[in-house]
């Protein structure tokens, strides 16, 4: 049973990665939701497999809960800590996009100044104006703010998340960039 919980998690994650590559799920604007939806479905298969296998072995009444938690952590973390982060950094990281733009400017033989970089990024889809619009939209999608007549209103959920984040930063004595 423990072997299934450990190697099942790793094996199903490998299948997930292969499906992401075959169906090019990391491409496109809505790559996060596409990847997460597939990951959720495969996680469901993992859970059903675990209980189904325990039932088959007649060990359902002594189901190894802690091993199941560890296996689930392995399956979830392989995606959210490694793959999803790599895709996120490669695709959406502002700092990486800035570095890519500096490289593109340098390749064109231009001495990169802040002004030239700013102009270059503004001329592209991934400029900081675009990023700002994108993040404002994200705040709405997460239901942290509502837009009424071009004004952003903080929702109770947004207030809660803001307080939680600020409390954590205060405990650790950290300041936002």
């Amino acid at each position, binding site marked *: 049973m423990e072997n299934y919980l450990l190697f099942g998690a790793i094996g199903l994650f490998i299948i997930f990665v292969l499906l992401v*590559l075959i169906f090019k799920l990391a491409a496109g604007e809505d790559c996060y939701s596409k990847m997460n939806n597939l990951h959720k479905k495969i996680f469901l298969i993992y859970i059903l497999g675990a209980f189904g296998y325990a039932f088959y072995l007649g060990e359902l009444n002594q189901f190894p809960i802690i091993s199941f938690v560890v296996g689930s952590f392995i399956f979830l973390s392989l995606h959210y800590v490694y793959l999803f*982060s790599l895709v996120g950094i490669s695709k959406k990281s502002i700092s990486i996009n800035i*570095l890519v733009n500096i490289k593109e400017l340098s390749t064109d033989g231009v001495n990169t100044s802040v002004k030239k970089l700013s102009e270059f990024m503004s001329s592209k889809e991934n400029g900081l104006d675009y990023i700002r619009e994108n993040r404002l939209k994200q705040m709405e999608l997460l239901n942290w703010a509502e837009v009424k007549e071009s*004004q952003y209103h903080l929702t109770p959920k947004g207030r809660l998340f803001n307080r939680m984040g600020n409390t954590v930063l205060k405990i650790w004595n950290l300041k936002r960039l």
Partner: protein
Amino acid sequence: MDQSLLLSIQFFIPAVLVHILLCHLTGTEKFMLKGLLLGIAANLGLLIFLVTQTNFDIVAIYLLGTGWLAYLMLFINLLNSVTLKMLEALGNEVSGVLPKEAFNKFFNEEDGLNTRLDSLSLNEFIIKKEDIIELTSKAQFMLGIISVLRKLFNMKS
């Protein structure tokens, strides 16, 4: 696997406590470097413990290493996320209301870019000589990895 989880927690919690202390003593500067070094130290501690017990528990090593990375990622998001900065700006308003234009002030081309460039310079990804920006070898290496990943996953920025 029960033992693996217990072992990883026994090393994770003291590492978090040391991290809180370290952050109080040194602040936000070089957060990632300090966090990674502490994580490596905790993992080395676990590894040495396992060697003395002649028990190479790879699951415990994975749980501690990955748990620590997840913990660091939470803070990286809290510190750097543009969405969270916007939420904070909104939360700082007593009325909880801001016009859309107010966000231009918080994150415009000039200020947003300069903040990021300062951070990239602090972390030695770029060198700013007067007004000229140059990539360091560290940045070139990182961009090489990103380029491979983008090709592999068929991604555009």
